[in-house]
């Protein structure tokens, strides 16, 4: 061998950066340039995205229905300050996720595998993939209902929106995908003009924010169910997986922590305002004693609102429902793609080429295709799916939150970004409260089956 010494293959083959690394490096260079030019707003504009998207993505079809039902059942009441509180809780949980992503540069599912073993990683993956698939079905139900208000046939609505989700995912550029989804997510704001067209009483809203009252009908089962539904509409497992993976895919570093926190806080604030806007818009149904207990979708609410907020307001409401389903379909399918690829150790990035990250893109696209097909199937068990989605999301929130807390408290991987003892006490209390509330909510749905009642 002419005296040549053996060298491992890894030393002989030069390291060639992957497409996703090149794209990320290009994005980082733009951020570094903006920093060197001392343009803080531009730096924020470049770094914002995961936080705003996760919060507006969670204002999805079922969540907007919960807010609509809340306004129609209780009017301008206790629930308006309560929604502010739930988004504060969401911020506290998601801020931990941001820190974990920045400190470890690993996605949530990947980190669960590394720190707690493959069995917990597989559990997280299965929980995410199944929960997300069923949630995607409910998003397409929301899109179908919203488009039906405008007389668009279901097949065109579902196939068109699925194609849009797929096209956005296949741009092979994280930044492009993010900007497309953010542009669409701006449609979430349509609920605000709809609320203004209801001519809300500003003094009553200010009073309810200050006093946490009134509470028409007192504490009843309907009140309790809506409390739980509103919490379930704000904090769900896919959000944890999505934001941590998006933070990693975007390449955020310690230097970006402040902007990432502002991004998450801004997202929570916008989402809370929209949620409150929805409650205010439908509060007019409460004022006019309209019974909404048989309402099944957004189109029912839009139609009922028409005499009170006009055809423009009702159309804005229906459009908002379409947007809510569409944006959530984009973020939720992406969170499935990240989670499954992380556990299977496959390449995972919205910057990766289609052929080089087959598992990633196949998971995202397949979940959208299956969910869209289910919605179009005649006699599909859509009610079963909608109820099961709530049960899965709320029951499985406890394990997901526990892992967040354990990871955020792990000094070995978190370094300086580790939860302080005080933060752990606050976050631990929130996690315990959300877990208990989630489990109780799931039981309120499941127990009636055992006792022979209706699931509602």
């Amino acid at each position, binding site marked *: 061998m002419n005296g040549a010494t053996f060298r491992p293959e890894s030393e002989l083959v030069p390291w060639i950066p992957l497409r996703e690394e090149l794209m990320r490096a290009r994005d980082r260079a733009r951020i570094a340039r903006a920093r060197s030019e001392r343009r803080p707003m531009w730096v924020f504009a470049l770094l914002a995205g995961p936080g705003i998207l996760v919060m507006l993505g969670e204002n999805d079809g079922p969540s907007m229905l919960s807010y609509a039902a809340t306004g129609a059942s209780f009017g301008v009441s206790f629930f308006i300050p309560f929604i502010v509180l739930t988004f504060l809780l969401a911020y506290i949980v998601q801020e931990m996720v941001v820190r974990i992503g920045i400190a470890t540069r690993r996605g949530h599912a990947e980190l669960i595998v590394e*720190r707690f073993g493959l069995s917990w990683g597989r559990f997280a993956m299965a929980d995410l993939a199944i929960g997300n698939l069923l949630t995607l079905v409910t998003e397409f139900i929301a899109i179908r209902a919203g488009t039906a208000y405008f007389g668009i046939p279901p097949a065109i609505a579902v196939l068109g929106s699925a194609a849009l989700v797929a096209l956005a995912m296949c741009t092979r550029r994280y930044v492009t995908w993010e900007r497309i989804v953010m542009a669409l997510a701006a449609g979430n704001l349509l609920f605000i003009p709809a609320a203004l067209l209801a001519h809300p009483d500003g003094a009553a809203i200010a009073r309810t924010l200050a006093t946490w009252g009134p509470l028409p009908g007192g504490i009843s089962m309907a009140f309790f169910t809506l409390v739980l539904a509103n919490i379930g509409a704000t904090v769900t497992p896919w959000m944890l997986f999505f934001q941590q993976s998006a933070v990693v895919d975007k390449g955020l570093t310690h230097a970006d922590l402040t902007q990432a926190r502002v991004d998450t806080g801004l997202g929570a604030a916008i989402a809370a305002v929209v949620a409150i806007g929805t409650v205010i818009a439908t509060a007019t149904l409460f004022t006019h004693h309209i019974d909404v207990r048989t309402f099944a979708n957004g189109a029912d609410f839009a139609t009922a609102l028409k005499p009170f907020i006009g055809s423009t307001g009702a159309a804005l409401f229906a459009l908002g429902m379409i947007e809510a389903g569409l944006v959530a379909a984009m973020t939720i399918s992406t969170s499935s793609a990240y989670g499954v690829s992380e556990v299977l150790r496959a*390449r995972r990035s919205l910057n990766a080429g289609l052929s080089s990250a087959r598992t990633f893109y196949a998971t995202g696209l397949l979940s959208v295709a299956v969910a869209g097909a289910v919605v179009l199937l005649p006699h599909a068990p859509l*009610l079963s799916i909608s109820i*099961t989605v709530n049960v*899965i999301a709320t*029951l499985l929130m406890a394990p997901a939150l526990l892992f967040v807390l354990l990871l955020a408290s792990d000094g*070995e991987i978190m370094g300086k970004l580790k939860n302080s003892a005080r933060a752990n006490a606050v976050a631990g209390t929130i996690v315990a409260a959300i877990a208990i509330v989630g489990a109780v909510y799931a039981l309120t749905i*499941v127990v009636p*089956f055992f006792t022979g009642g209706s*699931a509602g």
Partner: protein
Amino acid sequence: MTQLPPLPPPRPITGFTRVLLIGLRVYVIIAVPLVAFTFFHTLKP
């Protein structure tokens, strides 16, 4: 694959974390049949 700085190897799971994870395992064993039951029960016409 992407060049990432390695994380420190995980320590053996002991103490409070171990108790939490055992509790979680029990919780999951109860939760999964509940989810399945909900889905299949609501399938009934």
